[in-house]
């Protein structure tokens, strides 16, 4: 599938901001299953500085600075992306999950790199409750593909999608207690359930193209940024390692309607836009508009 994506984040302030510095993750990654025909990031008002760089996980990070006084800041990422359904090695999926733990067996090919995603991170604390929840899926000897898919089904079944239940800083413990959340919370929870058992799992940020209800027009700008999880599959017999991408929010493996932008240990590594402002303003508004248009 091919998509043209337009993701605009608009901040409004009640007073002048004299200096804004920001980092954006809005340029999709090039992958075996994803080709990026074009991508750019536009900041308004005109920035004095805007540059792209590749971060330690291979994501494109865009740094910018706006120094003219402004009461509205727009950060807009546009891209043109072709996506196919990722293919996974069947033997890798059939490996018992216990054999995919980089801390237990650091000599696994690629294991040293995956270690970074097997340790706790700021937004993914390791709690006994997350471990217990994950244990029901991670039964001894179970193939990793099946175990992880089962965990995905359970989270989808046990947790309610509720945008009012959590905030951007909600913790795994809160999600488990509330039994509700949004995609980011489900991704963090899934990661915690896997990491507490020694598996490596990363947070993936991107888009999911939505289909309009039958007979209705597609509404422009009504899409949203999305987040899911990828689990490490060690390479077998000298082969390269892979990452199985699953979407606990929609209870499915990631397919050709998913556009991958960036990944990291958790949300904190790859927010679409983050920044620092210098201002006397006391209130601000945030407006996010995402359009994923099939072409």
């Amino acid at each position, binding site marked *: 599938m091919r998509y043209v994506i337009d993701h605009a984040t608009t901040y409004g302030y009640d007073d002048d901001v004299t200096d804004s510095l920001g980092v954006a993750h809005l340029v999709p990654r090039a992958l075996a299953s994803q080709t990026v025909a074009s991508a750019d990031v536009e900041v308004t008002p005109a920035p004095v500085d805007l540059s792209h760089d590749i*971060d330690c996980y291979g994501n494109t990070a865009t740094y910018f*600075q706006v120094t003219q006084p402004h009461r509205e800041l727009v950060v807009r990422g546009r891209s043109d992306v072709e996506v196919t359904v990722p293919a996974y090695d069947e033997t890798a999926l059939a490996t018992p999950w216990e054999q995919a733990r980089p*801390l237990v067996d*650091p000599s696994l090919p690629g294991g040293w790199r995956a270690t970074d995603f097997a340790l706790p991170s700021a937004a993914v604390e390791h709690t006994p409750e997350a471990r217990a929840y994950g244990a029901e899926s991670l039964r001894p000897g179970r193939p990793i593909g099946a175990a992880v898919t089962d965990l995905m089904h359970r989270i989808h079944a046990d947790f309610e999608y509720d945008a009012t239940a959590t905030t951007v800083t909600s913790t795994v413990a809160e999600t488990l207690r509330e039994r509700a959340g949004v995609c980011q919370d489900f991704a963090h929870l899934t990661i915690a359930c896997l990491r507490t058992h020694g598996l490596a799992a990363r947070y993936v940020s991107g888009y999911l193209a939505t289909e309009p209800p039958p007979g209705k027009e597609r509404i422009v700008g009504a899409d949203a940024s999305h987040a899911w999880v990828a689990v490490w599959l060690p390479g077998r017999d000298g082969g390269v390692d892979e990452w199985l991408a699953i979407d606990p*929010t929609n209870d499915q493996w990631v397919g050709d309607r998913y556009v991958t932008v960036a990944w990291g240990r958790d949300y904190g590594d790859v927010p679409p836009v983050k920044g*620092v402002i210098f201002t006397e303003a006391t209130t601000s508004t945030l407006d996010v508009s995402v359009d994923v248009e099939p072409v």
Partner: protein
Amino acid sequence: MTVLRDYAATVTQPTLGGAARYDEVVAPDGSLRPAWKGLAEVAVGITEADLRRVQAEIGRFLSDDGVTYARPGRGHGRWRLDPVPLVIDAAAWAPVEVGLAQRAELLNAILVDLYGDQRLLSEGIVPAAVVFGHGGYTRVVARPEAIDPRPLVLAATDLGRDADGAWRVLGDRAQAPSGIGYAMENRRVISRVMPELYREAGLHRMEPYFWALRSALIQSAQGDLADPRVVVLSPGTHSETAYDQAFVASALGFPLVEGSDLVVRDGWVYLRAPGRLERVDVILRRVDAAWSDPLELRGDSQLGVAGLVEAVRRGRVRVVNGLGAGVLENPGLLPFLPAACEALLGEPLRLDSVPTWWCGDPDSLDHVLDRLDALTVTEIDGRPETLADLSTDDLRARVLAAPYRFVGQERLPLSQSPTWSRGGTRAVPVTLRTFTLRYGSAYRPLVGGMASGWLDATTPTSKDVWVIKASAGDADQGLTGVLPMTASRSVPMTVPRVLEDMFWFGRYAERVEDLLRLVLAAHTLAEDFRTRPRSTGGASLAVLMAAVHRMAGPPPAGLEDGAGAYDADFRSLLLDGGRAGGVAYGLDGLRDALRGVRDQLSPDTWRAFGATDRAVEALEGSRHSHQVAESAGRMLSGILSLQGVTASMIRDPGWHAIGLGRALERALQVCHLLAATTTERRGIDVDREVLNALLVSTESAVTHRRRYRGYVRPAGVLELLLMDAENPRSIAFSLAAAREHLVALPASTGSSRPERLLSDLLDELAAVDVAELVTIGGVERPHLVRFLDVFQVSLERVADAVAEVHFASGPPPRPLGSLGLSLVSEAGS
């Protein structure tokens, strides 16, 4: 008996059961170690009484130099320095020096690898969890394009001696190593209090090392800048090692800045000078990496510079040490250093570390769990104290929950050295902090260091470290051809924060001085009249006390009543730092303002506090009333010495800010004094006595006598204190001085608001008719009351306007979305 003989006799006695420690001074057969043999002639003669005297002198020197060390949550305390140095001879030092140089080179190579090719990790030489699981690993600088070839410029390594006398590494400090300033200060003090021993020793002087450090920092700048700007970035005056930071800054002649003094524009770092930005090329960083940039590191940090990481990645500023260096402060690395050394340098590691087991390795984990009682268990990036109180079972559970986060380390029977403690000398364990600098293309250890004698497990006292030269002709620090530097102070820096601290220096110094004079005048009256409240003197005393309370606030509740009330009040003014407006409070404010600009000021500045501290001690130790006057007088002399410090300052904006603060404060204080003493009629005798005291406390008595022949009346006093442009204590004089200083500040334009307000005040004052002011209505002088009220408010307004125009450095950085946020549409699905 002398101290050394006593000591030798004690330590060579066979001990029962206790672990045998290596003794730094005395060999097992009772003879002196080689390092001490050269000193024997002088050292053996030192008696207990000598050491007691030396210890007292050390205290005085450190107090005069204002040397402090802050423990978390406990404020600044005195730095502790032991009179007995740690002495090491050239032969014993040589292998340590080679080992330290190699170690720094290795640590640098490890940093380059961990943030670049990651060969150590991909080849399994260092387990990935040791690095990725460590809080110091800074992913935002782990980018191929951002490789800094020399991330480690200054390293510190802590050493301890095993029972066999071999030095072993206890740990490395690379984030922002502290202590070299303390080491230098220790040397300064010890060389002065034990001059004979110091001369006899023939040891390496430290100054050339500072010259080399300065030159290394200058050379750290990217490209071929002719005159790179180097700054020392401090977390602020409340930092544990604020003294050390300021010492280094001023010894090197680089300005001490805080995060808010710097700004990033277009990927470059600038100093926020008034009206312009000055580019910064090298930052000696004393802020931990995590707090260095609220954009890409901790978003809640107010200590950093937003955009710094990006400037570093682009190679536009050099941060020393590199932002990723904290990962080296990691005991988990220790077991893997020998292999890393072979892999990266192709040579065996020379300095052994204290035996360490990383629990992420199953065999090592078993080893540690089997010996939990015998080993010290620490988190790879935590402080050991946090685990110290756990029971063995709790500790085991903690380790098992995340083994890769822990190491077990053997406890060395550290060597011992004679150390002054509780009025005598005893043997205590010592550790040695060493420093290693990248100078040119090689690493050079400081020949010396800072030792700590451990009085108990958590209480160190520092010791100077003497490395004796092999022959008297050896170059100090083995450095030849380093350019000596003469700068004893940083280049003046006029960022708004510095001007503000200077301004408050002026205000507090003046406020304390004026208050002390008033206290002295009041105390004189109290000595005579405290028991005769109905006498003329008693009434005058009441008026003066009201003036004191107007300036310093009322006495706190619960003070003594009756005849002792006055002294209790005076003591509270002089001693109680919690009494806002009091002398002690003002001194704290003054010290705080000065700490922020320590690098800009003469070291003599701190003598003032040496004097006030001793006056405080004397007052605390004596219950006699005359001690109040005695101590207040000594405090006054201390504070007056600050006038000498400012007199010899360069006439830069900082100096003018001090002058402006002083002048405005003086005018304000005179207003307060006049309002408290001259606005009411209390009968001729009382009025005369009050006015006399007023003249004394404003140092205008002599002038008044000369001019009015001792005929004291309100009009004359007002003339002298309000209008007289010749009297440096008058408001007219102060305002004229304030104007001169104000126009010299960089942001003054000739028409700025503070200049306009001040000019209005001067006009208003010129138009005053003293005869009208003293007109009486009832018991009051209503014109005078109104005039002083209005004038005071106007003065405060000038001070506020000065702050707004000259000290404002803009709003602090805030994370996007941290403001009261109303969501228009939802992100995330």
